[in-house]
């Protein structure tokens, strides 16, 4: 046995014993079943007819596959007073998410850049307060923010809900970029200063291009976070801009009459589609975002 072989075998006991090895896989597979079950049930339910749902088994595959629930969810399910499906919510969410991703990233990068390189007096204290602010429950800020938004004429408008997302994402976005820029050598910044670069030029031409990995991580976090938001959209977006999550909840919980479980599940999948696709495509980047966002505090 070579030393190299020893190095590559870490948890020796489990590896050597056959039954233990089987146990490891058995545990992981059982856990997988638990984690996948809701997704499976959502999918099969969404392809069944209501008759089949009433009579059949929740785990059974659809006997007569139907796409009707998906069409209904998208075009004619009732989201409160109107019955135009959740497609309106989809587009509302898109219009909320795009500026609510772009602006917080730009501001976060600028804050991080000013905090790590320019360090104006007092900025560090401000940053400290911002970090503590990240822990304030939304409810504490809710009523005053409603009043402030109202006095600015922004309550219940698209710019209003975007501004709210900018406010609530500022701590984590600032932290993300501050930590990233702290890892960049100060010498680089000093050299750019000697070359006559000003505040915004160094930011736009040197720092931003260097921040691509962080921008990707931040974008993943913002898109999924804003897309999945419910409470802020519910309060601040206004009737014409209600995001998809709010409309989804209306479809399922506020509609009277018979519950169309197949339509409900199709609508739930449609609403979860955007963050799920981002998750499956981005893979490790998504995890990186979690790790980076987790260091707050």
């Amino acid at each position, binding site marked *: 046995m070579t030393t190299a072989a*020893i*190095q590559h075998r*870490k*948890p020796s*006991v*489990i*590896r050597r014993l056959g039954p233990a090895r089987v146990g490891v896989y058995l545990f992981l597979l059982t*856990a997988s079943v638990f*984690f996948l*079950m*809701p*997704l499976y*049930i*959502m999918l099969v*339910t969404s392809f069944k007819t209501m008759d089949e*749902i009433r009579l059949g*088994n*929740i*785990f059974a595959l659809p006997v007569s596959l139907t796409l009707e629930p998906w069409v209904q969810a998208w075009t004619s399910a009732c989201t409160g007073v109107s019955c135009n499906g959740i497609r309106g919510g989809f587009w509302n969410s898109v219009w909320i998410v795009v500026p609510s991703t772009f602006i917080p990233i730009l501001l976060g990068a*600028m*804050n991080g850049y*000013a905090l790590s390189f*320019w360090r*104006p007096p007092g*900025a560090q204290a401000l*940053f400290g*307060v*911002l970090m503590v*602010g990240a*822990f*304030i*429950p939304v*409810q*504490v*800020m*809710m*009523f*005053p923010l409603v*009043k*402030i938004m109202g006095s600015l004429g922004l309550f219940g408008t698209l710019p209003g809900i975007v501004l709210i997302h*900018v*406010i609530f994402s500022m701590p984590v976005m600032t932290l993300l970029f501050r930590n990233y820029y702290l890892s960049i050598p100060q010498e680089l910044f000093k050299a750019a200063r000697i070359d006559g670069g*000003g505040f*915004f030029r160094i930011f736009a031409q040197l720092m931003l291009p260097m921040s691509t990995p962080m921008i990707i991580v931040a974008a993943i976090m913002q898109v999924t976070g804003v897309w*999945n938001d*419910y*409470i802020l959209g519910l*309060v601040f977006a206004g009737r014409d801009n209600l995001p998809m*999550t709010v409309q*989804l*909840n209306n479809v399922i919980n506020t509609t009277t009459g018979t519950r169309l479980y197949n339509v409900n599940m199709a609508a*739930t999948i449609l*609403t979860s589609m955007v963050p*799920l696709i981002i*998750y499956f495509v981005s893979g490790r980047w998504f*995890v990186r975002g*979690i*790790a980076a966002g987790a260091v*707050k*505090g």
Partner: protein
Amino acid sequence: MHMKVHTGHVLRTLVSWGALLPMAVTVIVAYLGTVLWSLKISFTNSRTFPSDELVGFAQYTRLFANERWVLSLQNLALYGVLFIAACLAIGFLLAVFIDQKVKGEGLFRTVFLYPYAMSFVATGLVWQWLLNPTNGLQQAVRQMGFEDFTFDWIIDQDMVIYTIVIATVWQASGLVMALMLAGLRGVDEEIWKAARLDGIPTWRVYLSIVLPMLGPTIATVLVLLLTAVVKVFDSVVSMTQGGPGTASEVPAKFIMDHLFGRANIALASAGSIVLLLTVVALVAPFIYARSRAASKASA
């Protein structure tokens, strides 16, 4: 020359402060300002509109005399303990088992973490359907021949809070797994070699050596989970709407209902301040410990 340097310095400070203006306004108005405002409202007798008439701690007295509030605090405590314990246990176990150099590691990780990409609303709705006694899991098991099988917690006043634990643990334990796994991968190979030489069983190494080494990771996870607990709202609204009756009420929902539905903003503000104090009491020790550790490291 000296003069020029000086003005240059002032200008530099001004420009960077200008760039930080949005952050300054956010911190001062949106964070500090709103908290102080809510604090003030909680000492008034405001109902639909803010009033300036101060009533001392009357709203807080009223709050804790309110059965629904007390119930929602109890629910939050029970929910919080179970949710955090389950997330930590499941997340740690999943991470340890994935760490056994298994085949298809990437696949397992993807499966355990995907619920975290889903919203709390969607999570609540899926589990509401799954736990539906007439057509869901209970019915399916009965059809398999277990005619007496009952699993109707979601309509049971005494059990409903546990269904919210199940749904949110499903959503969040993958996150714990991901962070713990990153922590496990950071454990020095030398420790494993030494433990092997001493013939210590693997489970023992995990429990007595590795777990304590994961302290910082666990602290991070705890802070994340604690803030999630205090915030719990979307999943309750979508899954049970606080019902049956008021059995699954939580403080965040109580506050929202009194702010918007019941037009009692002073009582709601008092509730929100209590929530804030809860967060401070729970999270402050971690922040304190971390900053102490940081200053120790730099000293």
